[in-house]
């Protein structure tokens, strides 16, 4: 079970700035452990952001994104009280969805 995300969404001038902190190991698949064996890749593949249920952004992520990634973006026309939902899926099939209300 993945740990929860931290989502902050604030309206400013007709738009909303969304800041997301995700809890994920983001193993690149390039590192070796103490026994010299490759640590298998384990990272987020896809991030989806929706605004009141409508998808506003999808992103394909790879091994180059750092551990516990931070993502910030602006949603045009989003108002206070609207719902922002973030979903990620990783290459092990795990996924996590969290929701926040724009303040």
């Amino acid at each position, binding site marked *: 079970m993945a*740990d929860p995300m931290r989502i902050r969404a604030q309206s400013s001038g007709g738009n909303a700035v969304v800041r997301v*902190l995700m*809890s994920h190991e983001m193993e690149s698949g390039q590192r070796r452990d103490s026994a010299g064996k490759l640590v298998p890749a384990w990272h987020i593949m896809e991030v989806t952001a929706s605004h009141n249920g409508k998808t506003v952004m999808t992103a394909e992520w790879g091994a180059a994104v750092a551990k*516990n990634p931070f993502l910030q973006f602006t949603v045009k026309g989003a108002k206070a009280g609207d719902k922002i939902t973030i979903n990620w899926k990783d290459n092990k099939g795990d996924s996590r969805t969290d929701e926040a209300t724009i303040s």
Partner: protein
Amino acid sequence: MYKKTLWGAAACALLLASAAAQQPKTASQGIDEYRAMLQDGNPADLFEAKGEGLWKQKRGPKNATLEQCDLGKGPGVFKGVFVELPRYFPDTKRVQDLESRLLTCMSTLQGFDEAELAKTAFGRGEQNNLTALATWIAAESKGMKFNLSQSHAQEKVFYEVGKRLFFQRAGSHDFSCASCHGEEGKRIRLQDLPRLTQNPGDGVGFAAWPAYRVSNGQMWGMQQRLNDCYRQQRFPYPGFASDATIALGLYLGVNSKGAVSIAPAIKR
């Protein structure tokens, strides 16, 4: 050939001079800017959320929550306890810091094996959970001022012991904590080191841990901070939640009286 190098050197010097004129920024200012950029979106928030969840979750062999844990202000009180730890606890008859107290609660309330948990490596299994709990408890005192008690005789003893440990020189490098933290203006590579024999200021030294370290993506409590200081001094590792580490922490905490806690902080 000789002339050419000379010209090259002159050009280099000119270039350096102009670069210096354009950027009066020192290396440590650059690091401060980098830290400020990281401040937004401190992954310590993730550990904080995890810790809060763990506090209320029924866990361990006794399947109990930690909500009855007494951190110094009575069972279940978590606001403002961090800035008064380490302190003397009459039930265990020991001076304890936040992490050793959580260890006590996890063993008495939840039934975890205290000795086994203390032996677990940092960042593994239940140690990871303990750090998350400490992160959350510390965050509940963010912005408050350190005010450690020195009223109990044991607390005075721990202060004196901590002070001696701070100045004790040993190991292959004949090092002590004071070698780096005993005067102003010392640094390790580009990291400015606080002077810990006095109050180093708000959010510096004792007032900044637990902290998330960006370089290795780990959340560190004060115990791990001290453990790593000893590693850098080439000392043997002190035991987790040992009296020595608590005494050292208490010494730093008492010295930090009046400093504002910014924990959980973010570190390079």
